[in-house]
């Protein structure tokens, strides 16, 4: 064989092998976490393991649309995960436990199903006991303490004729012997407060105003703003920007009802797919904050409502609940 022929063959073989081998080698050593809409598999991998205190370097990429990444109950900014791009993020966990990471962009109908877990093991330097390790929600939730059946109907038999005003209620409540404690507020629905005021000389409208004031006095502008932000990021996709149950996914949820695996008995339960309308006074004024806490913590069980217990802190949930009532009550004109 001529030398030129031999060299040509060697050159071609080396070039092709290098073209295949080098990228393959680098590719195999670059573990990416792939995000896809839930219908196509969600996160892959969806279980990540790390030791306490060790930096966890993650490379995130989206295989379809824009997703977001955040870890529940961690003080971190959500990062965007863009199609075909790689987002680098480093996390360090100082307490062991199972953390939930989730998508923060409305990526598709089952966006809320895009979740995974980070299993953090090892000894913690933190004085907080290892089990339960995450946040404060591991305390027994109030709805459990109160023994509430969060799936039972909770409609208010009577609703106000106009939106109750916390400003008006404030003046009326000044001389009333009502319990203004946080525990009382959380354990009772506005309708229950309305009922307890039936032995006063106030009109129905005034009694609702007092309830509105009581609700307003148990929150702060900061909590409401925080609740509003959480709502906009996590709830509005289904429940609607204005709480009317008409979010961008609402129609799709209804349409998907019969075929969706989310329903247990098919068409009969299709109504379960309809996001709750927070502007409906019958439903909202009959619900206590503790009841709503249970629904948010646990989720809808068979409906499209996800469980948020592993994502929101207890404080965030109370802030969110305070904001939900703002769809019923007029808080304007009241200063803290």
């Amino acid at each position, binding site marked *: 064989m001529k030398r030129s*022929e031999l060299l*040509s*063959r060697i050159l*071609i073989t080396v070039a092709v092998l290098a073209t*295949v081998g080098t*990228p393959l080698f680098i590719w195999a050593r670059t573990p990416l976490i792939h995000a896809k809409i839930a219908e196509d598999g969600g996160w892959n991998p969806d279980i990540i393991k790390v030791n306490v205190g060790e930096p966890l370097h993650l490379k995130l*990429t989206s295989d379809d649309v824009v997703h977001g990444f955040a870890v529940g109950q961690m003080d971190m900014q959500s990062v965007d995960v863009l199609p*075909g791009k790689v987002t680098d993020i480093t996390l360090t966990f100082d307490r062991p436990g199972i953390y939930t990471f989730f998508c923060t962009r409305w990526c598709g109908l089952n966006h809320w199903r895009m979740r995974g877990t980070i299993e953090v093991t090892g000894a913690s330097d933190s004085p907080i006991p290892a089990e339960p390790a995450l946040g404060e929600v591991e305390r027994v939730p109030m709805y459990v303490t109160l023994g509430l059946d969060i799936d039972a109907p909770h409609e208010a038999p009577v609703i106000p004729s106009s939106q109750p005003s916390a400003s008006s209620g404030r003046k009326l409540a000044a001389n009333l012997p009502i319990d203004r404690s946080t525990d009382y507020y959380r354990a009772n629905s506005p309708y229950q407060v309305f009922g307890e005021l039936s032995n006063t000389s106030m009109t129905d409208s005034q009694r609702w105003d007092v309830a509105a004031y009581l609700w307003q006095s148990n929150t702060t502008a900061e909590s409401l703003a925080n609740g509003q932000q959480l709502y906009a990021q996590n709830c509005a996709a289904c429940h609607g920007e204005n709480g009317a149950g008409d979010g961008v996914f609402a129609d799709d949820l209804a349409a998907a009802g019969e075929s969706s695996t989310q329903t247990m008995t098919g068409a009969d339960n299709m109504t379960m797919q309809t996001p709750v309308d927070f502007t409906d006074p019958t439903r909202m004024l009959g619900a206590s904050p503790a009841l709503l806490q249970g629904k948010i913590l646990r989720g809808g069980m068979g409906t499209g409502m996800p469980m948020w217990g592993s994502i929101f802190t207890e404080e965030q949930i109370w802030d969110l609940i305070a904001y939900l009532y703002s769809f019923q009550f007029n808080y304007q004109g009241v200063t803290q």
Partner: protein
Amino acid sequence: MELTRNPFIKNALKSRYPQLAVFIVMLVGYVFAILAGLIGTPVGSHNFSIVFVWIAWWAILILVAVPFFGRGWCAVCPIPLPGEWLQRGAVLTPPDKKPKWLNLRWPKALRNIWLQNISFLLLALFSSVLLTTPNITAIVLAAMLFAAIGLSTIFERRSFCRYLCPVGGFIGLYSQTAPIELRIKEKQVCVTCDGKPCYNGSANGYGCPWDVFPGGLTKNTYCGLCMECIRTCPHDNIAINLRPFSADLSKPSTRMDEAFKAFIMFGSAMIYAGVLLGPWGALKDAAYNVGTSAWFMYVIIFLGMIFIILPGLFSFSLSLSPNPSPAGRGVGVRVFASLATALLPLGLMFWVAFSLSFVLTNATYIFVSLSDPLGLGWNLFGTANTAWQPMLTSILAPAQTLALVGGLIWSARTAQKAAGEVKVSSIPVIIYCFIATLAMLWLLL
């Protein structure tokens, strides 16, 4: 003008090494495109295979290579190389007398471009998925590579390029319009040449891989510009010439496979413009959702448009000719095929106008993909984060209009020549081209 008079050009073409260097670069790029399609990001707009094949390569092919160099792409295409090297048992060494593989002749019944018409249509019908899904692109690229290898071991020469390659068919057809050609210098030299080494091979090189006898070349259609005959000709009788655009079209083809290729390309450009650039969501969905009833409807419309509606209207327009052929045949096969030649310039310009649109819209993805070809977060050339932005938007519509109007004029001129050859009126064809141009203008603008 004979380019091979220039000693630098002539020596560069006669030597195998410059071509081999280009071949290796192209083959490496091709293999990398397959790999990127398989292991890179599935996001088409960021995957090397999609961006470099369907945006960069396509832009170079349709906007530069075909209009100016004819089969220039075929001269450097990597697809047949592994098969050809295997067939020859060598990369550079001149051939043995004895074939190493089956070396069969291609079946006579298939010595036309109907298989290329079919292979192009197969890709065209799946193009919405093919053009956006990296692993499908990778599979198709690999399949073509292996098909070329397989055919090289069974049949003689470059059977894949000549009879099966889905892009080779239209490149050949449109290469007739290009201002470059490979031709013999003196016919008598070829007539008296012993052994015809340009076709049969010699110690200096291989017999024409495209199964063409250069001495009989009158058109670019089936000459792959592989330059082998320049190396084998013992009389230095092969030249590369610069010539006027569309010189080959003055001798219209009478072959129906080529005529229908013209309709396939003509119709495909219009359908693509509607599907990929048009505002019709249902049409897009139908094209993308392969296997659904909507897609089957799309297939029926696509094929109906190409095989029935466009040729039918063409045929009908010819039948209305105020100056039918002397024999009174009206729409004879010869007339039909000859006048279909007139669709070539306009068809090419349809593709130029359509390609300008999506190439300029998506060109910034080339910079992104160049720096991060596998979507692993690299930034090799600092361009990985280039924001998507359509380029040269202000000149797009004028350039498309110019291409289409220019194509219409070019086709009208070609129609006059073709009509003269078969002695019928060119007016119906010109009106047909005019209406098609209006339709394309509407679709694009």
